[in-house]
């Protein structure tokens, strides 16, 4: 088993929670893991990404080679495209459709979405809307993780367990909100695949 994931977004959007949830689940399954992340200057509203590598064999590089990622999970639509050179021919893009516009020359969002949809394997999801519907607008990142679940080679139940571990110390309510968001995203993909 080998899974190379790029998690993308803008500094502050919560990509590390996604990485931690998948990572914890992988460790629960006794898999090897390497996860590189961005700290420092870019965290101030710049583009950020995490390379998450999971395998049943020892992993060498902390970075994913170009053209080898199995999936790009992105909390921001334009950011999902920034890492396309990493994506393999059969790889999936799972992305939020709601742009985070903090640059003047942000491209027309319709053109961005059209570009994403031109790729063979893509899931585009309005995570903000779904998160708001379930009463937790700040859980958009977990909705997107839910939407990516079918491509992660781990079961929904295992991932739910991982999230309980990650958010456990923040209390029952936080765990419940995140799981609700995860489930909503998961169901969206099952319907739209």
């Amino acid at each position, binding site marked *: 088993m080998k899974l190379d994931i790029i998690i993308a977004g803008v500094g502050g959007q919560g990509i590390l929670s996604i990485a931690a949830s998948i*990572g914890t689940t992988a460790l629960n399954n006794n898999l*090897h893991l390497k996860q590189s992340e961005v700290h420092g200057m870019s965290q101030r509203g710049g583009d950020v990404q995490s390379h998450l590598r999971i395998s049943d064999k020892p*992993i060498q590089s902390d970075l994913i080679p170009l053209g080898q990622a199995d999936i790009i999970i992105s909390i921001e639509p*334009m*950011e999902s495209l920034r890492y396309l*050179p990493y994506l393999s021919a059969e790889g999936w893009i799972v992305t939020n459709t709601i742009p985070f516009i903090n*640059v003047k020359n942000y491209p027309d969002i319709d053109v961005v979405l059209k570009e994403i949809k031109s790729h063979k394997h893509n899931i585009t999801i309005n995570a903000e809307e779904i998160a708001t519907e379930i009463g937790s607008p700040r859980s958009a990142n977990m909705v997107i993780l839910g939407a990516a679940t079918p491509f992660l080679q781990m079961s929904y139940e295992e991932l739910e367990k991982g999230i309980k571990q990650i958010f456990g110390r923040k209390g029952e309510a936080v765990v419940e909100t995140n799981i609700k968001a995860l489930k909503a995203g998961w169901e969206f993909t099952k319907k739209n695949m």
Partner: protein
Amino acid sequence: MEKLLLLGDEAIAQGAIDGGMSGIYAYPGTPSTEITEYVQHSKQAKELGIHCDWSVNEKTAMETALGMSYAGKRAMVCMKHVGLNVAADAFVNSAITGVNGGVVYTVADDPSMHSSQNEQDSRVLAKFALIPTFEPSNQQEAYDMAYDAFQFSEKYKIPVMLRITTRLAHSRAGVQRREVKQQNILKLPENPLQFVLLPSVARRNYKILLKNQEAFRTESETSTFNKYFEGSDKSMGIIACGIAYNYLMENFQDKPLNFPVLKVGQYPVPRKIINKMVEENDSILLLEDGYPVIEELLKGMLGIGLNVKGRLDGTVPRDGELNPTIVGAALGFIQKQENKIPELVVDRPPIFCDGCGHIDMYNALNEAMNPYGKGRVFADIGCYTLGALPPYSAIYSCVDMGASITMAKGASDAGLIPSACVIGDSTFTHSGITGLLDCIVEKTPVTIIISDNSTTGMTGGQNSHGKGRIIEICKGCGVDPEHIKVIKPLHKYHEENTKILKAELEYKGVSVVIAQRECIQTLKRRNAQKFANK
């Protein structure tokens, strides 16, 4: 012992805690910050009474660690690569004094300059100071080297360097812990003159340091961190240092590796093993995540004789960090890459947070400076450096910690009046106070804006030594209290703030304007904590 999922930085911290460290000393700097933060948040470290407060800068950090070593205990100093420049005086001389308790200097280099002004390679400085260096390839080695380095340091009474690069610092993997070692007891140096670098003592100590080089080399040649893997294809031998080894191996996941490989993790350079590699192979490929340090040694000044490939002949790009794709290209592998970045994707540079006080400070400063034209404001290292970018375009320098005040002084000396500068509270205490004193002694006409958000913001909100002390420090240095102005950088005070800045720019002496408002990030965190505690 348990297995933990740790960043490279955290693995070093845990290795040092388990290795019997009594104190960690540092000033925050990406990518090294998380080492000290890990110790600060560690329950184990707290129970063991390990010192872990921030220092005012890397030089004080290193000297304090040397004091702890003098008293017999083990200490670690952490910094980013440019921090080593700040501590260079202590660094080089500590190789001459040697240590009593073990000392490890952990230096995190930043090839590709993700969050830095340059990509200097600290291995060059370690060689310059004649101290041994460890360079891990993964998180487990980072832990093991931190753990073992104290013992090495005490064996030869020499401080050692642990050199990492950004990728290892900020990448997580599983780490197996080892047995926790006891801290050393208080014990003065056997030789009371060991740390007294009078020329007579220094000459003696230096001879010992030179003599030890042979022993350090033997240690490198027999170290388990330097491994030679035999190979049948002698057309090329590959030397891979630190994390470059992983990038090399990544390229042979689905094909056999027949070239002999030397994995380097300990310096000085293991001469005998390299000699074997050179003798047995037609050419050598060097993979170093940083400067071509070993490559230059092998090639020599004239570049004749050996067939050496690497950064100097263009096989590997001359600058920037390595990755598996670059290493694959150096090996001549064709990369499969189906997709390009679509042209519609635009850059997203870092920006000020919404509600940041620096924004209002720059808006007022730009208006106050308007009559004089552009090019008169020097700046420093911190979030406020983003003021160089549009829409502010307010500053014209960012060189090193503290250089804003001194460059403003130099420009003023040259006749550029008014001359102003912007510096943060933490940078001011790190290296700005001495420059201020230069201005005061000469009564130089400069306007110094201290943008005081009461934290070390760029690295994530660590305690600032300047918090609550800036006004008193300026007064104590001798700034005329009439020309120490405190403003609150908020939109609603824009006109008032602009007026104050205008008046101070007209003043022909040293004036300090302190723009004081808490960092929006630390404020948010404080409020969230308040909420959680309710």
